[in-house]
C-alpha cells in the first residue's frame, strides 16, 4: 500500500489560516489502513483546527468528508461531497499525493463557477508493507522492471541504499546497512536467500546496466489497457 504520514499541525495550519470555510476530506483506502488520512484522522485534524481558530477568536467553519478513493472519479463523483466542496474556500485533502492531485483536477473539472484549491495534509512517503503494529517499511520504488524473480523476492533497487544490482557493498556489517544500523542490508538478505534456495549461480553473471526508462525517469508514466477501453 501507499504509506503516508501527517504533516505537522503548524504546517497544515499555515496553509489554511487565511480562509474561513475549510473542508477536510479523508481517503478510505491506503491512508486509512496506515492510519494517516482516514475517518479518524479527519475528525482529529478538524477538531485541532477548530480549537486553533477558537483560540484566535476567528469564526471559521471546518467541515468533514470522506471519499473511498480520492484517486478515482467513481468515488469522488458524490453530490453530497461536491456540495461541501462548493461551499468551502479551501479543501484539505488527507489522501496521498495521488489523491491530492486527482481531487484538484476532478473538482476543478466538475465545479466551474470558481477555482477550487486543494492542499495536502500528508507527506506521502512510500509503497510499503505493515511489518508490525505501527511499523511500515518501504518495499517497492516502482522502477517499472521487476527483478524480484532473480533476487530471491527481495528488492535491491528499493532496499539497498545504493540500489546496487550486483551484490553487497563493502559497508555490509552483521547483516545491517552501513548507513543505518536499524536497516537490514538488502544484499545480505538476498545472498542468504539465494544460498538457501540453491540459486546462487543466478547472480554469478554481471547484472546488465539497468534500463531506467520504465522508472520515474521522464515525466509521468502511463498505462493504457486497450482491452479495457470501450
Amino acid at each position, binding site marked *: 500500500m501507499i504509506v503516508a504520514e501527517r504533516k505537522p499541525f503548524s504546517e497544515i495550519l499555515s496553509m489554511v489560516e487565511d480562509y474561513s470555510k475549510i473542508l477536510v476530506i479523508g481517503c478510505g483506502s491506503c491512508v486509512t489502513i496506515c492510519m494517516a488520512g482516514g475517518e479518524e484522522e479527519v475528525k482529529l485534524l478538524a477538531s485541532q483546527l477548530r480549537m486553533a481558530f477558537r483560540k484566535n477568536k476567528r469564526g471559521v467553519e471546518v467541515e468533514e468528508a470522506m471519499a473511498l478513493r480520492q484517486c478515482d472519479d467513481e468515488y469522488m463523483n458524490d453530490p453530497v461531497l461536491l456540495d461541501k466542496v462548493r461551499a468551502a474556500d479551501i479543501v484539505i485533502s488527507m489522501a496521498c499525493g495521488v489523491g491530492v492531485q486527482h481531487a484538484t483536477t476532478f473538482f476543478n473539472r466538475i465545479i466551474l463557477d470558481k477555482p477550487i484549491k486543494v492542499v495536502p495534509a500528508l507527506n506521502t512517503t512510500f509503497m510499503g508493507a505493515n511489518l508490525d503494529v505501527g511499523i511500515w517499511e518501504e518495499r517497492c520504488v516502482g522502477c517499472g522492471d521487476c527483478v524480484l524473480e532473480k533476487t530471491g523476492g527481495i528488492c535491491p533497487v528499493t532496499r539497498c*541504499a*545504493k*540500489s*546496487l*544490482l*550486483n*551484490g*553487497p*557493498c*563493502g*559497508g*555490509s*556489517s*552483521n*547483516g545491517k546497512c*552501513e*548507513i543505518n544500523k536499524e536497516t537490514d*542490508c538488502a544484499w*545480505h538478505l538476498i*545472498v*542468504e536467500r539465494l544460498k538457501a534456495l540453491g540459486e*546462487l549461480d543466478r*547472480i*554469478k*553473471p*554481471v*547484472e*546488465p*546496466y*539497468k534500463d*531506467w526508462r520504465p522508472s520515474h525517469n521522464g515525466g509521468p508514466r502511463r498505462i493504457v489497457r486497450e482491452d479495457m477501453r470501450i
Partner: protein
Amino acid sequence: MKSGSNLESLLEKGEFVVTGELGPPKGPDAEAVKKKARMLKGNVDAVNITDNQTAIVRMSSIAACKILMDEGLEPNMQMVARDRNRIAMMSDIFGASALGIRNMLCLSGDHQTFGNHPEAKNVFDIDSIQMISMVKTMRDEHKVISGDEIEGDFKMFIGAACNPFADPAWYRPLRLAKKVEAGVDFIQTQCIYDMKRFKEFMKQIVDMGLHEKCKILAGVTPLKSVGMARYMAANVSGIIIPEEMIDRLKGAGKGNAATEGIKILCEQMQELKEMEGIAGIHLMAIEWEHRVPEIMEMAGFLPRPEV
C-alpha cells in the same frame, strides 16, 4: 598493454608494487596537492586520488590527478557511482584519458549521509561492477555502452576495491570473482589489520585462481594512536582491529604509539609481500603523507623499481 601505465608495466614485470593515496583539499588549493605529491614522489609507484571520499566535497579527482602528473607522479583516479550517471562517467573518463590518466578505480562510493551534504540526491545509475564492465567495453570494444564508436584511442588500467572483512564473509570471494568476471585488472583491498582473517580470505582467493586473473594489492593504513584504532574499529564498517594490535600500541607508552604503529605496519607489509596471491601494497597513509618515505624505508621497499 591495456593502458601503458607504469602501474600496469611494473605488475606485468612481476615487481611488487606500492600505491599511495592522496585526498584532494576541500577547496581549489593546487599547492596542497603538490605538497602531498612531493612527499610521495619516488616512494610509491602510483597514487590513488580519491573522489569526494566519505561524501565530503573536495577538489575533483580528475583535476588533482592532473596536478599530480605535472609533479611527475602517476595517478590512479578513483571514481564513485554516487555522483554521476553513465553519461557523466563516460564523459569524465574520456576527459581523464585525454589528460593522460591511465589507471582508474571503480567504486560504489560512500553514501552521501556520511558527508557534508547529507541532503543531496544520489545517482547510483550503475554500480561499481557495472562501471568495471563499462570501462572494459570502452577499452576493448572501443565503444560507449550504447554501442556507439569511440573517437580516438582509449586505454585504461581498470581497478576496483574489495573489502575482505565485510559481511556476509562467505560471499566476499564470490563478489571478487564477479569483479574479475566484469573485467577488472587490479584490486586494492580495504585496510587490513586482522592478518589471520586476511590469510584465510586469500587462501580462498588463491584456491579459486582469482589472483591469476587480476593483480591484488593489499590495503594497509598505519595506526597513529590507540584512540584512532578504537575509533576505526567501532565506526568504520569492515574494519577489524585485533586486540593484541591495540595492546601493542598501548604498551609502547605515551608518545610512542605512532612509532609502534609504523613498526606494526612495516611488519604487515613484509608479511604481505610473502603472501601468495598478493602483487603489491596499497598504502593509505591518510593525512600522514610526510611519514611515507620513512615507512617505505623502514619496510625495506626503497628504492622503487624503474619501469
